């Protein structure tokens, strides 16, 4: 035990936080690859209109349902639209919606969670009972009900996915706050006369942040799966806009007649993206976990 503490202190003394972060990142090749892949995905999404080989919405009557070839690397759909171009353009929606909704849920959930955890009392009780009720619904099923009720514009989809995520952050931050507020530094901050908001958001919150970031990264993958699932059953992104789940849905009926490329490739795009989010989340957990820090 003493040696471990000794080693940790030693590492903290001799190495800056940044250097230690970089060293451990380089050690885990898989996480590093995943970090790079996320960067690549973001670049593709930003540059999408510039790098698509063909116009993603331009039908071509001479190239209907073509197999993957040099002219159409991932084939064409039943309107003759180029699949690769559509997948690239769709990456914008498929990254933006999970990202914005996760950010929104993170902000709302951690704000309420922080207040509940720090204050406790009747307010906390009421909010927690509400959270219990929301969590009684499987997330995807709740998302179905909500989009069916409020309609499926992009803004609504962001809101719906955020709502299904809020309880997780709220609970997590509340639990962290309950623990942190009893720590010595929290008592010290109070003793020297800091106002409550300052203790919560300046002193305690930064210590709860690492676990939240891990949770958020993992949740992005889940948000993407929710979005794609909603689009698949016709509640999400509507044609002619492209989204990976929607593209799978369009190709579904053709799959049983042998046109495999229409659904296969957007599915691989989803699989890879979610996989990358999960790997980055796991990697971040290893990086930020104090137990493995300094080793």
């Amino acid at each position: 035990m003493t040696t471990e503490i000794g080693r940790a202190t030693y590492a903290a003394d001799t190495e800056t936080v940044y250097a230690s972060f970089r060293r451990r990142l380089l050690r885990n090749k898989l996480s590093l690859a995943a970090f790079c892949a996320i960067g690549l995905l973001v670049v593709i999404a930003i540059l999408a209109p510039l790098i698509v080989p063909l116009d993603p919405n331009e039908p071509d009557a001479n190239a209907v349902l073509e197999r993957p070839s040099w002219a159409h690397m991932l084939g064409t759909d039943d309107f003759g639209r180029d699949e690769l171009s559509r997948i690239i353009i769709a990456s914008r929606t498929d990254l933006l919606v999970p990202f914005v909704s996760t950010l929104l849920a993170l902000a709302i959930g951690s704000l309420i969670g922080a207040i509940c955890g720090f204050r406790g009392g009747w307010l906390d009780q009421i909010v927690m009972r509400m959270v219990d009720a929301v969590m009684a619904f499987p997330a995807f099923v709740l998302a179905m009900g909500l989009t069916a009720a409020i309609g499926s514009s992009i803004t609504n989809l962001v809101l719906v996915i955020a709502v299904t995520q809020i309880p997780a952050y709220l609970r997590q931050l509340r639990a962290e706050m309950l623990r942190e507020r009893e720590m010595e530094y929290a008592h010290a901050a109070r003793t020297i006369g800091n106002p409550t908001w300052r203790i919560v958001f300046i002193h305690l919150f930064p210590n709860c942040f690492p676990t939240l970031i891990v949770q958020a990264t993992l949740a992005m993958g889940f948000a993407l799966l929710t979005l794609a699932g909603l689009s698949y059953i016709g509640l999400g992104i509507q044609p002619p806009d492209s989204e990976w789940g929607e593209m799978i849905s369009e190709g579904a009926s053709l799959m049983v007649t042998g046109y495999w490329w229409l659904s296969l490739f957007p599915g691989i795009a989803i699989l890879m993206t979610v996989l990358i989010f999960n790997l980055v989340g796991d990697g971040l957990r290893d990086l930020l976990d104090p137990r493995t820090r300094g080793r």
Partner: protein
Amino acid sequence: MSFLFFVVRRVALLVPTLFGVSVIGFLLAYLLPGNPALVKAGPLATPQYVAEMKHKMGLDQPVHVQYTRYLTGLLHGDLGESSSTGRPVLTDFMQRLPATLELTVASLVLALLLGVPMGVLCAVHRDTVIDHFGRVFSVAGVAMPSFWTGLILIYVFFYLFGIAPAPLGRLDPGISPPVPITGLYTVDALVSGNWHAFQSSLAHLALPSLTLAISVMAPLARMVRAGMLEILETDYVKTAWAFGLPRRLVIYGDALGNAIIPAVTALGVVFGFLMAGNAVVESVFGWPGIGNYAVKSLTMKDSGPIQSYVLLVALMCILVNLLVDLAYSLADPRIRIG
């Protein structure tokens, strides 16, 4: 603490949750923009007719009166009427529920049959090729959208190999359903000795249940692996090794029983995942369950069934979680204290 007291307390704790769930159900069905009166009146209705419809449905009443009405209806089993089938939603649900249950139970059993041995294998052969393969599979399993997995399975087993039946429903056309006893075709066919129907229903059940099983077996396997790794380090397992007991006996006799406990407590969560996956997977396979029914109604601009579906699924999840907790506390008395 006696078991009875535990049951009473556990059920009492459900009251606020059930209240909250009913409020959310009410919000979804009545308060949010998709105005039910407008839907019921049809797109060509005059504003006057819509107002009349609103009055008839009680939508011009204050919110708490509307909620009371909604709750009373709910308690009497009134989930409203489906405008696409023209029948009470509850009747439609009851007719389709056995199909959903059959699929859910089959995929749960399949997930356990595949996931538990996988977790054990990975733990016993820690950091070998088997373990790495298991890990890749776990990570990929949760990253795959279940509807996509389903489509790939259909392509491979129906289109390419031709060994799976067409993904349309629960039986081949031309085979009449077995005598209804439980509503689960496979069980009914087996009980009544209807061999043809049994074969056909089992074949139809295979791919959808495998699809759902793949999506939930990864977390199960991971939990069993983690539990197993911990148990393998305990003194009593080491003692068992030291006594020279056969490998199989130690792993499956001494270790697995305790390693599996976390996985059992997670069954409620797994059930929730399965129910969430159902709606989509049923649509892929044309499986005539409640999820498929809700999604189909939606494409006909009928949002009533989907709201009842959301509520029903939440209630089923609450019930399953309750049963899991109670069963678990019977098995492990320590829980009752906590």
